């Protein structure tokens, strides 16, 4: 036991002290943060970009008057005594960013309206203009049909379907569940992949450096394997802990430096534009539905499936690392059978988010090689207790079985040099006793 803790300590300390650990630990949140920053900048600049829009309204649609919304910073100027051709050549020089041409048309036909610009027009700007024109045409047609706007407003239906999930334990809303499930599933998938291959590389390093032979004359191969798996798992947990702290700090610090950012983000008109619905309903709905999720259960399952899945896959990756020689290509070939269930799990998870109770989703969340990923996609929707228990039980069982099996492969493989190992030989190591 003392030896395992020594090995764990070495595996953990050498990795945590490495510069690359510090770099990735700090860089990943930075990349994510800058990704968000770009989204914010793009969406904000799209709106705050004050430009002058020239409107040649031959149809008299707006009657020389346009209603601007609170956060619409464009200025609209109506021009007269021009034609489309004559003004197209000049609008830029006269200080207009855009030139909207509305030809005259009859009430029952659809006009061919053109928006002239120097570059492709921002989608939000375009849809805002379309909205204004649609409203103006509607108004005109209502007048022609002698229907008052109030009557029309009462007639017009603009519904949104409210998805209520009734799974016995109160109602849960679906959108937030899908988001949380997907994020958790993808996170587990990434953890298994990143730290699994880290274990494999570590084992390969020990094998190619021939350090394995020195160590196994001091400790059991199984201790070396388990120590490495636990040590690297601890590195992963440390990294996550640091990220959570950074994210937590960022939520305090960023508003202090850029006081406007979160305010702008939560500005209903802005987010509305992003959601393209013109209302903050969707965002509010997601936030609201996340609040209704069984967060404690999700967190518990996440930790459980993270540990179970990691231990399971790390054992497999360790076995592969012990079998390959220096040949990278050979490693890739052997990794393939291990990558398959991982990718399969990811695919099933994307399906499970949309249809959490389908046969394939239930199967994927029970099958131990895919369950850590798929079950995370299903849990927010509520999973029957028997399925959750069975899935966890199978995962633990498989993990124990695989550790036992891979330890046998590892023990032989790690001392075998310069020879390409076939699946047949690996099978022989497994069935051999002792």
């Amino acid at each position, binding site marked *: 036991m003392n030896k395992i803790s*020594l090995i764990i300590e070495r595996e953990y300390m*050498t990795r945590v002290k490495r510069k690359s650990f510090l770099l990735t630990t700090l860089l990943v949140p930075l990349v994510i943060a800058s990704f968000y920053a770009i989204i914010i900048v793009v969406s904000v600049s799209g709106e705050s970009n004050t430009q002058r829009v020239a409107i040649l309204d031959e149809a008299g649609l707006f009657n020389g008057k346009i209603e601007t919304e609170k956060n619409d910073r464009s200025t609209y100027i109506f021009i007269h005594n021009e034609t489309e051709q004559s003004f197209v050549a000049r609008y830029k020089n006269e200080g207009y960013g855009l030139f909207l041409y509305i030809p005259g048309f009859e009430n029952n036909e659809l006009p061919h309206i053109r928006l002239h610009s120097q570059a492709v027009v921002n989608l939000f700007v375009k849809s805002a203009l379309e909205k204004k024109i649609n409203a103006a045409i509607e108004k005109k047609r209502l007048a022609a049909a002698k229907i008052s706007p109030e009557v029309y407003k009462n007639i017009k239906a603009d519904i949104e379907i409210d998805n209520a999930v009734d799974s016995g334990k109160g109602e849960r809303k679906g959108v937030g569940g899908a988001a949380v499930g997907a994020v958790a599933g993808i996170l587990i998938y990434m953890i298994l992949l990143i730290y699994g291959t880290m274990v494999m590389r570590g084992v390969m390093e*020990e094998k190619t450096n021939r350090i394995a*032979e*020195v160590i196994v*004359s001091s400790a059991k191969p199984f201790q070396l394997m388990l120590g490495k798996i636990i040590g690297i798992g601890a590195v992963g947990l440390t990294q996550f802990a640091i990220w959570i702290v950074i994210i937590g700090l960022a939520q305090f610090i960023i508003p202090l430096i850029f006081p406007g950012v979160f305010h702008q983000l939560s500005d209903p008109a802005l987010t509305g534009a992003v959601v393209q619905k013109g209302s903050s309903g969707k965002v509010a709905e997601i936030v609201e539905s996340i609040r209704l999720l069984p967060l404690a259960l999700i967190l518990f399952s996440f930790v459980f499936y993270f540990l179970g899945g990691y231990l399971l896959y790390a054992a497999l990756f360790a076995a592969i690392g012990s079998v390959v020689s220096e040949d990278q290509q050979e490693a890739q070939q052997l990794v393939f059978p291990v990558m398959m269930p991982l990718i399969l799990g990811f695919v099933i998870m994307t399906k499970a988010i949309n249809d959490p109770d389908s046969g394939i989703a239930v199967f994927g969340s029970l099958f131990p090689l895919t369950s850590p990923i798929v079950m995370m996609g299903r849990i927010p929707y509520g999973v029957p207790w028997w399925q959750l228990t069975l899935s966890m039980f199978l995962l633990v069982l498989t993990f124990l079985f695989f550790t036992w099996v891979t330890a046998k492969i590892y023990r032989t493989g790690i001392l075998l*040099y310069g020879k390409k190992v076939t699946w047949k030989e690996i099978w022989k190591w497994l069935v051999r006793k002792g």
Partner: protein
Amino acid sequence: MQHILEVHQLKKYFASQKAVDDVSFTIEQGAIFGMLGPNGAGKTTLLRMITGIFFPDSGTIIFEGKKFDPLHDITRIGYMPEERGLYKKMKIGEQALYLARLKGLSKAEAMKKIKFWFQRLEMESWWNKKVQDLSKGMSQKLQFVTTVLHEPSLVILDEPFSGLDPVNANLIKDEIFRLAKNGCTIIFSTHRMEQVEEICDHIILINKGNKILDGSVKNVKQEFKENVFQVGFEKKPGDIPGNNIFEITGEKDQSVLLKIHEGFKPHDVLQYLLGLNHEIISFNEILPSLNDIFIKLVEGTPLARAFHTAPTSAN
């Protein structure tokens, strides 16, 4: 003297070959024991069983009078494998500390011993260097230190001098002698026969999984001697007439190599030569070198072919 290690009828078969097939030998406490054999003879497999890395298929190992128990006894053994293994990116000091603690030393104890050995082999300034920055000889020294650091009663060295310059090789050689003098037993596996002659008390020769030779260096040489003598003359002798006592096998400057025929003694040779009235200034027996014995025994077996073309090269 007590036997530190007894190996009885040890067998280890792999799928494709009999790596070790019924090998027995004993090693006395404090001996420097040479384990020789061509590449692929089964030496490494044998050593791995003694170090508890492999389990034998059958046979027993008695270590310090008791049945070998890998779990406890490996802390009493220091093993330096032929292929050196160190963590390339780890600092020298930390690495030595780690390996010593894996052998069961406490941190403080390990530190004390590392300091002692580093000072002894002039390695103090290396502490914060990484293995990848060391030369081959330097990492060899480090590997040796990590092997003997925990004061094992049995030290197993597989080709300890490969990659070392003569100065450092002598340094390690002196350490080996000193360890043996202090009661530590050493198993020394190598291809370099001149080192074996110089260092070892007792040797065994393994070929194709079998032990084909066992004895002290002196006895082995006696056993394989071919009655060859070297006679030195004061000035180059003329033709020595042919006779039935000996035949001349070589001539160099003022000396002659001769092989005594069956049934005659060195005494007969001297008498004959004195009769010819040549001034003899030296007369001594030429014992075969271990290298010759090795080649003679191993030659012709398919595994040894590669070895024969380059008998003194390591690996």
